[in-house]
């Protein structure tokens, strides 16, 4: 898909445009050389025939030796030309060595011309008028015949023809005959005229070959371009197929999704809805599109103005809206509550081309949440009220308000009171953690000196610790560091940590409380001499209902929610809680709180 771009096509077009200037000069030269050599066989045959006739005609003269010599020379030059021709034909390097072949041909043309020029110069003066006419005619013909033979290279024609006529002209001029002298003036003119013709022809040839090569290049480029276009068409088709396939996949996702999916345009008109949306709202996709229904068909009329405003904002900002809860009327008049994620689709130009709304029916979830709230409220009041009566009654009996009771009865009422209290603690802790987790706890932070809160917690929990015959003691100085915390909630945390430490300490030991300045934070530690935290319990110690050993609950009380509550409360106060093993046995639970920054 990555090659589907316009750039190569443009480059190819540009190459086609300047192809005329890019005909390879070497190729043009080679073509001219080829043209010149192709004329050689005819030239060789004609030379032999005309040379034979000339020899026969000149044979009866006194200069028979000279004629033989000339004939021999002609045969020699012609044989050399034939050899040259054959060598050229067999050459494998016609193209790169074109210039060399041209030079060889020029030499052969000069030799050929000189041979004829020799005939004119030597035989003309010494013969009869008829023979002189014959010779003049012969030389003129032979020189003229060079035009087509050497048309592809005018200098070659100039050499060849010059070699024939210039010695002859010299002979004519010096013959002493006025007519011949006049002819001697004309011959160079004819020669120049012929060279001019050859020159013109040469140019025609040259242009012809250039055009041929330019055209060849053009054809090549065109073919390459065509191939590339075809390739791109194939790639485009493949890309189209992939896009279509992913489009189908996406459509399938939307169509089969268990949530309602609605496609809208930027004006909020419904384009289509999926099966889930049809089932949820009671409209078919077709009905809605035929009616050009707006999304407002799914919004209660009293919220239409607000909807319009929010829609306008979303389209203007192009920002998706997530998790917005809307009460949607259905076609049958009932209502469902959906959590919507609405996403404007923006194209490369920044225009909103569609809006996708995905809605999850959370009606049941909302009902469940409401039920949970009601349950929590019931737990809070309806359960605590009878427990208050139960525990209160038992406390009065156990306090001896009604006089001394039988020892065994007192034992049982003691059991009942303790367990009633445990049940109450559990309910309170559950309510507490529910409140914290649902975000309903609002802390009431105030700037306090942390050492005072710690001291207060030690006083408050001393009585509880004494039950386990454990002392609560500060170790080292308690530092008067200011923190911004909720006093009651921090006391709740301290109470939890101190009572845990007391419960798990051996009788007669001390639970020590330390304070440590950590720079931006301050750490409070509660150190016990207990058995330590079992390895398999460490990971979930701050979880709900976490107790290392459920038999402990029966022995020492506690709900297993204390540390979970502590962790959440400390985090609400922007601190963190943790624990570590003490070197000499036991555990230290600590929390770090940020120091109050005086502005």
């Amino acid at each position: 898909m990555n090659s589907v771009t316009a750039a190569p096509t443009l480059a190819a077009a540009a190459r086609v445009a300047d192809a005329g200037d890019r005909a390879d000069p070497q190729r043009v030269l080679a073509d001219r050389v080829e043209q010149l050599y192709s004329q050689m066989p005819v030239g060789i045959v004609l030379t032999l025939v005309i040379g034979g006739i000339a020899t026969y005609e000149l044979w009866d003269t006194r200069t028979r030796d000279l004629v033989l010599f000339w004939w021999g020379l002609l045969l020699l030059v012609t044989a050399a030309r034939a050899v040259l021709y054959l060598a050229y034909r067999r050459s494998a390097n016609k193209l790169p060595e074109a210039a060399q072949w041209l030079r060889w041909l020029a030499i052969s043309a000069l030799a050929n011309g000189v041979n004829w020029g020799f005939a004119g110069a030597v035989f003309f003066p010494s013969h009869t008028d008829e023979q002189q006419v014959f010779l003049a005619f012969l030389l003129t013909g032979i020189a003229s015949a060079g035009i087509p033979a050497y048309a592809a290279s005018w200098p070659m024609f100039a050499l060849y023809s010059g070699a024939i006529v210039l010695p002859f002209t010299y002979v004519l001029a010096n013959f002493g005959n006025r007519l011949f002298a006049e002819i001697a003036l004309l011959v160079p003119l004819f020669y120049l005229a012929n060279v001019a013709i050859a020159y013109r022809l040469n140019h025609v040839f040259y242009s012809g070959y250039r055009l041929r090569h330019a055209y060849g290049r053009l054809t090549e480029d065109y073919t390459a371009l065509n191939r590339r276009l075809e390739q791109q068409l194939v790639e485009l088709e493949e890309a189209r197929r992939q896009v279509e396939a992913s489009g189908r996949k996406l459509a399938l996702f939307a169509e089969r999704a268990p949530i309602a999916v609605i496609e809208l345009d930027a004006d909020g008109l419904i384009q289509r809805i999926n099966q889930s949306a049809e089932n949820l709202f009671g409209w078919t996709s077709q009905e809605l599109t035929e009616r050009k229904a707006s999304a407002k068909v799914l919004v209660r009329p009293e919220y239409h103005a607000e909807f319009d405003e929010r829609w306008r904002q979303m389209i203007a900002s192009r920002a998706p809206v997530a998790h917005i809860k809307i009460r949607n009327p259905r076609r049958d008049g009932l209502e469902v509550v959906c959590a919507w994620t609405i996403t404007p689709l923006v194209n490369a130009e920044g225009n909103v081309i569609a809006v996708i709304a995905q809605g999850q029916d959370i009606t049941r979830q909302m009902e469940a949440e409401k039920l949970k709230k009601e349950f929590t409220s019931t737990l809070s009041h309806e359960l605590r009220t009878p427990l208050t009566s139960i525990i209160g009654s038992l406390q009065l009996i156990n306090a001896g308000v009604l006089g001394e009771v039988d020892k065994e009865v007192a034992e049982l009422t003691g059991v009942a009171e303790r367990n009633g209290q445990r049940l109450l603690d559990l309910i309170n802790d559950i309510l507490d953690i529910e409140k914290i987790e649902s975000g309903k706890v609002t802390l009431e932070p105030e700037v306090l000196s942390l050492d005072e809160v710690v001291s207060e917690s030690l006083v408050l929990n001393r009585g509880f610790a004494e039950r386990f015959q454990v002392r609560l003691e500060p170790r080292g100085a308690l530092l008067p560091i200011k923190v911004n915390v909720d006093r009651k909630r921090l006391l709740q945390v301290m109470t939890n940590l101190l009572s845990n430490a007391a419960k798990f300490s051996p009788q007669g030991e001390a639970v020590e409380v330390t304070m440590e300045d950590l720079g931006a934070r301050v750490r409070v530690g509660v150190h016990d001499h207990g058995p330590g935290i079992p390895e398999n319990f460490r990971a979930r110690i701050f979880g709900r209902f976490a107790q290392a050993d459920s038999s402990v609950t029966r022995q020492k009380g506690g709900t297993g929610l204390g540390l979970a509550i502590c962790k959440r409360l400390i985090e609400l106060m922007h601190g963190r809680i943790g624990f570590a093993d003490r070197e000499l046995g036991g555990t230290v639970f600590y929390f770090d709180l940020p120091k109050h920054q005086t502005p």
Partner: protein
Amino acid sequence: MPAQPLNRICYVEDDEDIQKIVRMSLERIGKMTVEVIGDPLVAIEAIKSFKPELVMLDWMMPGMDGPTLYRRMKEVPEVRDVPVVFITAKASQRELDELRALGAAGTISKPFSPKDLPGQLRAIWQTLP
């Protein structure tokens, strides 16, 4: 600090069991004289005739809740100045602060311990002018 120790108390509470426990706690442990009122709608009349030194109001009651009753009391000259303590299981700190600002003498949170209740009330009594 009031001159005499706390003795006469009115308690407005609809739950009969809690009524009994509070009565027993205050009478037996606190050695106080207690008038329990079960119906908040007749509470003001009952307070007028009993003339308590302190009134305890339950927060949640059918018919009229504690805070409403408290505001009604403020409109009746004979009972307007009687100190009021709320017994509540639900009030948030903010609501309690609001009631304090209105002039409530104090709050005791539910569930309370009947053993400690007389002591708690006396502690509040000590803070009054």
